[in-house]
């Protein structure tokens, strides 16, 4: 396969944005974060929402990890591991794309 997002593992230097037709949205009625995507909307849990709010096409995954490390009292390597796993999964679903 030629799809680089599917075959190249993400790292601290990876730069991501939301693919067109995909976004993070707070639903005031259900008081939950949702990922809006083609033909479906799915819940983003609070941890995922923290990561996804920082994805803007300018911050690398390393920079996002640093910000979350400052904000939350968790080991940096744990945050990085979770961030890489989440973003890889969402890139596979075509929600996120490499800049």
């Amino acid at each position: 396969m030629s799809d680089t997002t599917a075959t190249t593992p993400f790292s601290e230097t990876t730069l991501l944005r939301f693919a067109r037709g995909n976004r993070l949205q707070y639903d005031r009625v259900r008081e939950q974060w949702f990922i809006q995507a083609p033909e479906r909307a799915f819940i983003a849990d609070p941890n995922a929402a923290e990561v996804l709010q920082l994805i803007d096409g300018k911050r690398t995954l390393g920079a996002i990890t640093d910000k979350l490390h400052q904000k939350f009292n968790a080991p940096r390597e744990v945050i990085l591991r979770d961030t890489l796993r989440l973003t890889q999964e969402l890139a596979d679903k075509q929600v996120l794309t490499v800049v």
Partner: protein
Amino acid sequence: MSNTPPPPMSLLAELTHRCPLQCPYCSNPLQLDARTTELSTADWRRVIEQAAEMGVLQVHFSGGEPMARPDLPELVAHAVSLGLYTNLITSGILLNPKTLKALSDAGLDHVQLSFQDATPEQADYIGGMAGAQAKKLEAARLIVEDGLPLTLNFVIHRQNAERVPAMLQMAETLGARRVEIAHTQYYGWGLLNRDALLPSRTQLEETERAVAQARARFGTRIAIDFVTPDYYADQPKPCMGGWGQRFLNVSPSGKVLPCHAAESIPGLHFPSVQEETLAAIWQNSPLFTLYRGTDWMPEPCQSCAFKEQDWGGCRCQALALTGNASATDPVCERAPGHSVIQQAIANRPAVPPAFRYRRYGNAETA
């Protein structure tokens, strides 16, 4: 159920029943709404506002052909301004650089484009319109060029099932992100044309194999949604995710329905957006509470372990095949009416009869 239901996730906005195509499996009702009965732009703006307020997340602009309404870009822009996700479900026949730009500028999020087959002759025959396939291929090219995510939708039946591999190839060639390989559902026009459409079990299994092979080849690049023909299933589908659980449908004339075929059920009052708010209809109308949840269920549903998975199946199919909308969907192998499904399969004619095309007045002699 007396509890307040959770708000719907999606609004299917059927802006019009007018359409340049006449597919014999159309999901619109046999009695099509005339242009003169269609809601005004102001009505649709109000419906969209009420939907956003009650917690709808996605609006699917559909029809008929929604692009036949000149106010479509205005309605899309209005939905976008309220934070709604906007999806256009179109035949692509009226799509050109100018009409696409108006929708793209309005903030449209996604396009689902229908195809009737992989070869132009067959596709034009099924849709009942000469030259349709060429227009659709051009529409797909323009959508991808604009950068909008594109889903291709193919409705599958005995007269195109063998070309599923070619359809999947089309999705790849055209640059689609998703493709729906959706077997026909048999109510309304599909039921009227069932002998011309129902595939054999062998045909079904070949489509399943083609989809499995393509999934392995596509990986994460192209997602495939496969919808099985429920006549060959042993369990019914959870129609609309359960009656009045996730979806709201507003018809061209403003009727608020739990599904697009609900108007086929006799003896019910269908509430209108002209008279009440969407939220009031969703929460309190007799139509939406009628089959919501499990209290209404007969046996064998009532004591079935799957009753909150399939919600008793499809009410319109139960009506169409048993004469009783409150019956267990006969697709279920435990249903008392299941033999009608087996008979329909056994009685498939060797040669498909001519289509009864979907057009105004064409169901009246049924």
